[in-house]
């Protein structure tokens, strides 16, 4: 393992269970997910609704329980942490959620929201906490005067800046950004993305960036993992993934992004069907029912394709890609 690796996830599995009156249902939301994030790197976890990207992040942060797998942070086994040790660890890893309308307590002032982590983790109190809050608000492009305002007085972009300041208050090394810019208008989104890039560089943060918008991911990620139905189906350095996507799902995902210039309009064959979630998964490749170019023989339907290295640092879980590699 690379010594610079900060977060290392292996075989992560999360099963959502619901107990109804008549039946218990189980749904494997995350199934054998593994990846490494090196210090200073930003890994983007991308995929469509229900693919398990948010569940993966929540399990890593210990906001929900994992059913199997290991998560190591700086060598420490996160899934084994309990009580006080877990509480202390939370300072290292913070999260910014998608919706700043629901993730900020409407009854607390901006100052109280940002200061909470300082107090909970016994970092600062009183005048010292106030001074820190003022510096944090300035760091995220707000003013000291905003500390006395309440979330409903702020725009969506300002609220997201408050959420970022709150996450930074405890001086974390690792930041999870769960669709942190997805709910923002496009001009605000560009500003908040620029802010995140600045803060990441200034604080040497390591990030897990969860997003569905590939154009946004391309701007900020150093590497990308594509999820489909609870599994990573392709992972590569960002430049490689965008230049030469290997898995047919990744290709379809990139092709489905609308053009950014009307002169680039082209005939495309959209991927048929929906990402199927919540159903019993077939034995073979989960993408097989939608795959435009499955193999003629039965390989695609008999076994789950493993994530295998197909180029330097690039991994894909597609039997056809693997086969092509062996025959050339």
């Amino acid at each position, binding site marked *: 393992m690379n010594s610079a690796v900060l977060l290392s996830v292996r075989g992560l599995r999360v099963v959502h269970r619901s107990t109804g009156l008549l039946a218990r249902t189980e749904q494997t939301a995350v199934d054998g997910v593994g990846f490494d994030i090196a210090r200073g790197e930003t890994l983007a976890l991308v995929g469509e609704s229900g693919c398990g990207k948010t569940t993966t992040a929540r399990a890593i942060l210990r906001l929900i329980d994992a059913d199997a797998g290991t998560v190591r942070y700086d060598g420490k086994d996160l899934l084994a942490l309990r009580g006080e040790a877990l509480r202390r660890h939370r300072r290292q890893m913070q999260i910014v959620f998608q919706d700043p309308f629901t993730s900020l307590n409407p009854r607390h002032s901006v100052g109280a929201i940002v200061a909470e982590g300082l107090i909970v983790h016994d970092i600062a109190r009183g005048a010292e906490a106030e001074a820190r809050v003022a510096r944090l608000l300035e760091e995220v492009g707000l003013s000291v005067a905003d500390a006395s305002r309440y979330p409903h007085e702020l725009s969506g972009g300002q609220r997201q800046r408050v959420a970022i300041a709150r996450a930074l208050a405890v001086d974390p090394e690792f930041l999870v950004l769960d669709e942190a810019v997805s709910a923002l208008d496009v001009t605000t989104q560009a500003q908040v993305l620029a802010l995140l890039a600045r803060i990441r560089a200034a604080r040497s943060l390591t990030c897990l960036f969860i997003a569905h918008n590939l154009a946004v991911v391309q701007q900020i990620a150093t590497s990308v993992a594509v999820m489909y139905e609870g599994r990573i189906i392709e992972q590569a350095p960002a430049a490689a993934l965008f230049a030469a996507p290997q898995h047919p799902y990744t290709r379809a995902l990139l092709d489905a992004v609308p053009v950014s210039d*009307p002169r680039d309009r082209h005939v495309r064959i959209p991927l048929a069907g929906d990402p199927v979630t919540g159903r019993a998964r077939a034995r073979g490749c989960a993408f097989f029912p939608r795959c435009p170019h499955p193999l003629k023989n039965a390989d695609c339907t008999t076994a789950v394709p493993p994530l295998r290295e197909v180029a330097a640092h690039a991994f894909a879980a597609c039997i056809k890609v693997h086969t092509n590699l062996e025959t050339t």
Partner: protein
Amino acid sequence: MTALLSVDNLRVAYADRSGERQAVVDLSFSVEPGEIVALVGESGSGKTATALAIMGILSSNARVGPGSAVRFEGRDLLTLPERELRDLRGRRISMVFQEPAAALNPVMRVGDQVAEVALVHGERSTTRARDQAIAMLDRVGLPDAATRYRAYPHELSGGMRQRVMLAIALLLKPALVIADEPTSALDVTVQAQVLQLLLELQKESQTAVLLITHDLGVVAETCSRALVMKDGRLVEEASVDALFHAPCHDYTRELLAAMPRLVRPRVVA
């Protein structure tokens, strides 16, 4: 060519606790038959209020200002009696909403919701309305339409529900469809399917589309002309090509600069 829809000096104001808030100010534009026009803007720009005013379905705290006119096929929709408006809606002019889960009736079979459009507009035979609905559900790509006719909205995926919405909106081949963020709630691969379907249906029935969106990519992909709104006002109107290559207004330039652009791979098949 006479315009299919012409909006003149439209003003819409919402009453709230602090008085009145202008949502749309002196908005004028027109839509030609068969044309796909984008109405672009960020949240609060007044694009949805414009759509609701055209359809005559503004909420009760909204007021259309004096001097406003919305002419559609020669009639002023703002002064038309409700009975005549009801006759136009669904038959000559229809609407597709962002959230099909909220727009569809949750306790009515999706097929019946499509057939209802025909029955409300003069079809006497329930069998014929049903057949028409099944044919349309099949056309919008609902797999196994005859069986899915009996499904309830919650049994369908988001993409399938939006296909049902398109079936309802386009069943009677209206002259104009107002689509308010029709693909914003959908995943990108499903968005591509639904946009393509909308374009096919538009071509088949020669329907004009007023496509309301915040997504310039959707505009680049589908529209021929675009209207840009900011704070209730129209700030730029241009062909889509001119809008992307020679924007006139600073705000349009700002929007284009902020638009996340995917640098595309050269995929070798």
